[in-house]
């Protein structure tokens, strides 16, 4: 079963289209990283999934339930952490936990205590007095302690320093239940989620440019560096190559649909005079920078380059 299933979802703020007939599937048990530039609609999508907003068109199903009809029982299975979310400033951490615990049938006190220790949070501190990093830790604690089936995180790392980010990720991983859970993380910070995510999606201007397992993505995006001869003719570039760059005799680009076979056959054909062709893996970071710049949809195809 899919943890999240979105079909044709559209949302507008007045005249601006935030989500444009979006289709998205998040398989159960995966860690899905949703990436994309500012204003691409990530926050809106997450708010729609948690029922904080209602879509005019399309449908979003979360844990088998329509997101606009989430009952309070459904919400007990969903954890939500967002950058702007306000925890009650006047409560002490222990009061906050005491307030939330009875609302969730699956609240795990032991896990809560473990996370509090791991995050270094004191139970008697007021939420309003917490630093930004500690505030995010507290929010994550509140979302993890009930052992949700689906955890949704909207920009959890923004404005948080590196050490705290590490704590957050480790706390998250330590809470993974044996039954399996699904995590949807939305972040600018590609590097933080690069090794964590097993599924990746890229949202731009309300549209999903790609959505696939991270390993597949890494397989098909390759960085190619060609050392050309001085006298060689102008290179024959394929239109779907990304981040094409030339300096002196070096030509570099990213192939979005590479395969071992393709690389071995077509590159020498295209660059018969090349002194050297170097093919290497690209990090997700490079892929997404390239995609953000090009803005073009690059779905996996079997096309010949």
């Amino acid at each position, binding site marked *: 079963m899919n943890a999240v299933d979105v079909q044709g979802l559209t949302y507008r703020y007045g005249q601006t289209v935030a989500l444009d007939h979006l289709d998205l599937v998040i398989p159960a048990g995966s860690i899905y990283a949703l990436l994309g530039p500012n204003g691409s609609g990530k926050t809106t999508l997450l708010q729609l999934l948690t029922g904080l907003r209602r879509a005019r068109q399309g449908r979003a199903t979360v844990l088998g339930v329509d997101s606009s009809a989430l009952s309070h029982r459904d919400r007990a299975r969903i954890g939500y952490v967002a950058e702007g979310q306000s925890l009650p400033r006047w409560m002490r951490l222990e009061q906050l936990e005491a307030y939330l615990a009875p609302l969730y049938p699956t609240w795990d006190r032991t896990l809560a205590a473990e996370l509090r220790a791991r995050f270094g949070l004191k139970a008697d501190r007021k939420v309003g007095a917490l630093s930004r990093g500690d505030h995010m830790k507290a929010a994550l604690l509140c979302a993890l302690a009930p052992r949700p089936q689906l955890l949704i995180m909207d920009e959890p790392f923004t404005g948080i320093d590196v050490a705290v980010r590490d704590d957050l990720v480790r706390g998250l991983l330590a809470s993974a239940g044996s039954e399996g859970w699904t995590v949807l993380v939305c972040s600018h910070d590609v*590097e933080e989620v*690069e*090794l964590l995510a097993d599924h990746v999606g890229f949202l731009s201007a309300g549209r999903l440019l790609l959505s696939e397992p991270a390993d597949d993505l*890494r397989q098909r995006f390759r960085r190619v560096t060609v050392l050309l001869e001085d006298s060689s003719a102008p290179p024959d570039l394929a239109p779907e190559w990304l981040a094409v760059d030339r300096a002196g005799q070096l030509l570099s680009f990213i192939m979005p649909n590479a395969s071992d076979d393709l690389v071995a056959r077509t590159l020498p054909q295209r660059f018969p005079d090349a002194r050297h062709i170097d093919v290497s893996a690209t990090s997700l970071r*490079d892929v997404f920078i390239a995609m953000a710049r090009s803005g073009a949809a690059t779905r996996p195809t079997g096309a010949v380059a």
Partner: protein
Amino acid sequence: MLPFSVSLTAGESPYRQIVYAATRAVLSGELSPGAPFPSVRELSQALRINPNTAQKVIAELVREGLLEVRPGIGTIVKSGRRASASERRRLLSREVEQLVVEAKRLGLARDDVTNAVEARWNELFGDDAGSRRSVR
């Protein structure tokens, strides 16, 4: 800290990288037979990967016969698993690839490569050109 060396780089599947590093460690003896292998939780925490991925890694290593699960003890390195010379040579393939490709780029010949290798070996390990005797 993990009992074998692994350093994850972006751009390649973490799953493959860990399987590769663990395989290397077992076959080279870095992980001795009968030694405990990190649990899913430990792998996940140490490398900051999805526990699911850690699970898959261990499953694959068990499938390949490098690890075994002992009830009550956990996952340990399987003893009696010796790497053949060809397996070990295969573990070196990446470094060989790099050496050969780079030499070609610099316009060197094959003999230059072998001479360089031999020279460096002698500097480090003396004239001992021996290798561990293969069992098979």
